[in-house]
């Protein structure tokens, strides 16, 4: 039995209502314990900021389109090369790094749990193969249902239970974690080179609307009793004036769950745009935050944009084509039969560009105008808004209005007329940052019960110790020290073992995949459903037998969350 004692830690653990106390943390056999014996290994935290391991509730690090981003971008690989170290493999890549680069860099930032934002069910094995190599974080996969034919047919029949049965069968088959909807209906329309422009536009052939898909999936999600809510990438991403569509989607969201939000809306920065075209493009973060502040049933992540080079990649195929027509850089697309789509293009966000400057402001505004930090996660939709290695800079921007003002002075001079940022003087504290980078994310994902995102007894021993001393630092003035401190932990501990010390990753392995298996009665088991079986026999290019992801793709310690359902 391994034992570890972290002494003298300045702990913030929002889920257990600890808001900054010097205390010891005992870890016994992977889990947080009440106490340990005298023979336990001791780490002296020396009063440094100690938080539960970071949780990223929306990132793109593993799977078909991420790997295609690497494949098509040798220039990005060259931008992030690293040598092998005693316990580390050599790495490549800056915005779409190799699996090892991702896992090492996340652990250097103190992250121990990450959710891959988009997995096409048909290509799930690929995601799981890469999860296997993501050895220093526990992983989960959002599973795409935005253009799923069986779901859309059931919605068209107004058959909620059937929607739930299809979702439940698929999640268990592909070992997914949550229901992801990317531009609902739009990815199906993209199969004809089209898109949907509004949540009430009918989808060709299926005759239903994005609004209906969202509504049914939200209810099916609750019927299946899933840990996470529906995870939505709204329609119309990146289009001027899209805030109206976003607002209406929010307005329509019911409140169905008292433990967590009913709808998680991702990278909302990209969905908070006013104006009618790029010429009068402006921020509508105020309206979105206003709505969010009245809707406790919704949680969002920022989708912050940071200046520099990155790669955009999403299941939203039509959106990527629009971007391609804007930038005329290289473009990849990959539609997935009967399910979804995807696209990739490299981008450069320039502070000299007015649109990019407005985008940068909107993300920050959303975070600063959302009153309750539990409703707004810190994320960049890695790597779409920026690679995750930029998180420390975002933390500093949220903690220091001086830093924001200094940065604002460097961006496009006309930005001020189109945004609200200069008028916001809120400065977040360490507690709020801890909420936005782990506690709220774990709560939103519904994984606090299995011991993630907090340091209560029985939780996983996931801890991040940052070289930041609360009393010695004024984040408002010393923002560069905040950036430095959050960029590199003294220790990142996962399941009671040190995985990274000053960025030197100390061991391999220990990662788990978390997935769900809704308990569904024989009556609703889609394996017996003739229409569903016919989809495989006639329209999928893979047979039903060869579709589910085999046990072999799960690491030994995988966590299967079985749920009691209404089916």
């Amino acid at each position, binding site marked *: 039995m391994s034992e570890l004692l972290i002494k003298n830690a300045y702990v913030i653990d929002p889920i257990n209502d600890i808001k900054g106390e010097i205390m010891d943390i005992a870890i016994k056999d992977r889990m947080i314990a009440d106490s340990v014996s005298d023979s336990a290994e001791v780490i002296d935290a020396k009063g440094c900021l100690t938080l539960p391991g970071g949780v990223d509730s929306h990132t793109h690090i593993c799977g078909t389109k991420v790997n295609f981003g690497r494949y098509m971008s040798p220039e990005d690989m060259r931008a992030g090369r690293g040598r092998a170290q005693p316990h580390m493999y050599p790495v490549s890549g800056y915005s779409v790094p190799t699996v090892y680069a991702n896992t090492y860099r996340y652990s250097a930032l103190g992250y121990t749990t990450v959710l891959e934002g988009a997995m096409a069910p048909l290509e799930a094995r690929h995601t799981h193969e890469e999860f296997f190599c993501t050895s220093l974080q526990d992983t989960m996969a959002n599973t795409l249902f935005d253009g799923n034919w069986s779901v859309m047919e059931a919605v068209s029949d107004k058959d909620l239970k059937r929607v739930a049965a299809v979702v439940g069968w698929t999640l268990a088959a592909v070992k997914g974690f949550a229901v992801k909807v990317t531009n609902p209906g739009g990815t199906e329309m993209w199969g004809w080179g089209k898109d949907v422009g509004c949540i009430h536009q009918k989808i060709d*052939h299926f005759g239903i609307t994005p609004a209906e898909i969202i509504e049914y999936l939200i209810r099916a999600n609750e019927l299946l009793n899933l840990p996470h809510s529906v995870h939505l990438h709204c329609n119309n991403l990146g289009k001027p004036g899209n805030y109206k569509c976003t607002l209406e989607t929010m307005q329509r969201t019911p409140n169905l769950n008292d433990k967590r939000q009913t709808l998680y809306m991702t990278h909302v920065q990209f969905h908070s745009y006013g104006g009618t075209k790029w010429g009068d493009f402006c921020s509508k973060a105020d309206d979105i935050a206003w709505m969010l502040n009245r809707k406790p049933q919704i949680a969002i992540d920022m989708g912050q944009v940071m200046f520099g080079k990155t790669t955009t990649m999403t299941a939203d195929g039509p959106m990527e084509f629009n971007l391609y027509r804007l930038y005329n850089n290289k473009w990849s697309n990959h539609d997935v039969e009967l399910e979804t789509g995807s696209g990739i293009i490299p981008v450069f966000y320039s502070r000299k560009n007015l649109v990019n400057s407005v985008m940068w402001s909107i993300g920050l505004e959303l975070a600063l105008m959302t009153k309750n930090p539990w409703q707004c996660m810190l994320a960049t939709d890695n790597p779409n808004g920026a690679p995750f290695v930029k998180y420390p800079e975002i933390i500093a921007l949220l903690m220091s209005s001086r830093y924001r003002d200094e940065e604002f002075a460097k961006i496009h001079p006309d930005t001020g007329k189109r945004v609200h940022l200069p008028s916001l003087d809120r400065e977040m504290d360490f507690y709020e940052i801890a909420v936005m980078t782990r506690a709220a994310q774990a709560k939103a994902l519904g994984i606090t019960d299995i011991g993630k995102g907090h340091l209560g007894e029985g939780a996983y021993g996931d801890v991040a110790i940052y070289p930041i001393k609360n009393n010695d630092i004024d984040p408002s003035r010393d923002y560069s020290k905040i950036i430095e401190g959050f960029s590199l932990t003294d220790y990142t501990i996962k399941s009671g073992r040190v995985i990274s010390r000053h960025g030197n990753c100390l061991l391999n392995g220990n990662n788990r995949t978390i997935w769900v298996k809704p308990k569904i009665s024989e009556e609703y088991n889609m394996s017996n459903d003739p229409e569903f079986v016919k989809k495989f026999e006639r329209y999928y290019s893979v047979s039903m037998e060869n579709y589910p992801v085999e046990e072999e793709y799960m690491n030994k310690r995988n966590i299967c969350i079985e749920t009691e359902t209404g089916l």
Partner: protein
Amino acid sequence: MIKKNVICSFCGCLCDDLSITIEDGKITGVDNGCALANAKFLGKERLLKPVIREGDSIKETEYNTAIEKAADILKDAERPLFFGWSGTQGEAQAKGVHLCMLLGGVIDNTSSLCHGPSILAIQEVGHPGCTLGQVKNRADLIIYWGCNPLEGHPRHMSRYTTYADGFFLKNAFRERKLIVVDVRKTMSSDVADEFIQIEPGGDYAVLSALRAIVRGEEKIIPESVSGVSKSQLKRVADMCKEARFGALFFGLGLTMSKNKYKNIRNAVELTDELSRHTKFTISAMRGHWNVYGANEVFTWMTGYPYAIDFARGIPFYNPGETTAAEILYRKECDALMVVSSDPAAHMPKKCVEHMADIPVIQIDPHKNCTSFFTDVQIPVAITGIEASGTAYRMDGVPLRTKKIIDADFLTDTEVISRIYERILEAKADV
């Protein structure tokens, strides 16, 4: 006994609907497969035991001895080259990358001899593609350019394109148009609605002409382009624009002919252009059943799809310099490990000559031309028949091939893992 939904590990189509009859632990029948699949599943010829070269003779030996010998060769090498990988399971490919990282060698897969130029084009302009089922259900226009699917990928047309059922097509076979582009008539061109016969080396010009017409610049096109009449080009451009969903598939005839990667770049840009008018996709006809898997595995582990040099501790990629044929040609490597492929049959003479001069390790169930040069050959279980393992179809869909009969052979992954462990132990000893 009959096993259903068996995945064929022969070509990049990875058909997953084969029925295999097994009697007394032996395969006696194959249903649904093409002739290539039948030959693979019913093949008897194979190497039964590991062999080692001693002087001029070849001796049978046990796994342990062969593995030890292989580890010794690699351990002593200053610049080992690891080549092949398109005919093995993904798990073995990953182990191979780790082995190469450990030794600071060069690792390359057979893409460098086939679709390497296509990958270079994609790295310049991207790749608008889709899964094969998307084509099957929607496409009303299919183009095969520089390939002869009926011979190279015999079931591509029946499972995924011309002859396949499609959700959005009532009578798929009649509603779908087929265009074949090639320098000569083939079995595939015989069944085409439109056959475009190009003079050898003329692909680039024809693609450019089509792009110009699609952009509305047909007045600049001469009466004939590389042997193709302007009227046919106009007709074809119209067919593309009028299609609801067009899918272009290209083969080595486009990739390996004059202008190489520029041809593919031009074809991708034609697809981009057509995407402004209708739905259009483009895909490579990948040959070996898991060559795309080799690209995928190498990419997530190293950042690059092929030709990676670890000599300086970092992954370094420069096709033309770090590709296997060039390294052999320059007589740079001092040991070669070949996994599931036959470089001696496909590389220039000078490369093969260097193979004769250096120690060669071969991991392959079968003897082939490369076996003439090997110092150790280790036979392995055949993935998809005697062992299961991951493979990536030509469109990126990952599948798990099955073990359908028992055999007393180690898998590729096991053999490479054992070599890896030996070398690790030896390194720890010094």
